[in-house]
């Protein structure tokens, strides 16, 4: 079972990296760019487990290790 986890900063938290890239893009002429936010994409191969098991594992992994829910939120999908 393979999965993709998306970890992003919570909306209320500033994203300095995103801001800097937004400024860079605007300077390069993409003046239409209104916001950039940078997160993590984590691709996992979970081996031979069921979708239910995978879902259960992923929640725990995200809460425990992959995201720090103090500042980040996460989403995942099986694929």
């Amino acid at each position: 079972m393979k999965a993709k986890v998306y970890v992003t900063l919570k909306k209320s938290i500033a994203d300095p990296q995103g801001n800097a890239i937004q400024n860079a893009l605007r300077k390069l002429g993409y003046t239409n760019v209104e916001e950039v936010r940078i997160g993590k994409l984590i691709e996992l191969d979970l081996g031979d487990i069921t979708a239910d098991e995978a879902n259960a594992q992923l929640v725990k992994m995200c809460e425990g290790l992959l995201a720090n829910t103090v500042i980040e939120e996460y989403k995942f999908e099986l694929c």
Partner: protein
Amino acid sequence: MKFGVIVFPGSNCDIDCFHAVKDALGHEVEYIWHDTEELDGFDCIILPGGFSYGDYLRCGAVARFARIMDAVRTHAAAGKLVIGICNGFQILTEAGLLPGALVRNKNLKFICDTVPLRVETTDTPFTSLYKKGEIINIPIAHGEGNYLVDEDTLKKMKENGQIVFTYVDNPNGSMENIAGVCNEQKNVLGMMPHPERACEEILGNTDGLRLFESIIAAVESESVISAQAVKNRHTGTRRKSAMETSRSKPIAFTQKEELLHD
């Protein structure tokens, strides 16, 4: 002979390069703001270390678009000297002026240390005053100094003698222990270690001096000054630097003298 040190937003070894050239070597040097359009009058351009644009997204990714980079390209194309140190190296690879890429250190940590390097070639304007195979100690300070390049390019680089420095004990996982490389024409050098941090006895290390002296020798032998004059001038510079740094230490000096008499 005039050096120029480019200042990007977030550069922070710019002052170190500036002072190494000015105080330790007694040569002319100017800061160049990233927004500048031309580089007339400069013989060697230094892209210093630091965190240009915060190194956000990827190290050097944004700096490569700075206005000054067109001028750096022109300067390099004209065969003049360019050296990128640490972040400067990353910028040069991002800009395509040097092959390969620099990724996260294998241990995923920033590493600040002084490490032994092997001088792989003296056949560049940056290393002529070292001895081939010589081991020198130079500080490193980077989180992404793990050099990567595709096999074909690597092969060509080796054939061409483009691998300039290698690590004796690979600190970051770099391919083939590579610490510094140059372009085919050998007038553009990129290296992760910081020679500008090894130019004064008071800092406990002068192994970086000969890199800058090699550059000066290369530029000055190109110009009308005779080889003899170069040597004299060099000796003069040396004395001055020995005077300016608080303790004089002869080791690097005698080595260099020997080399000049070779």
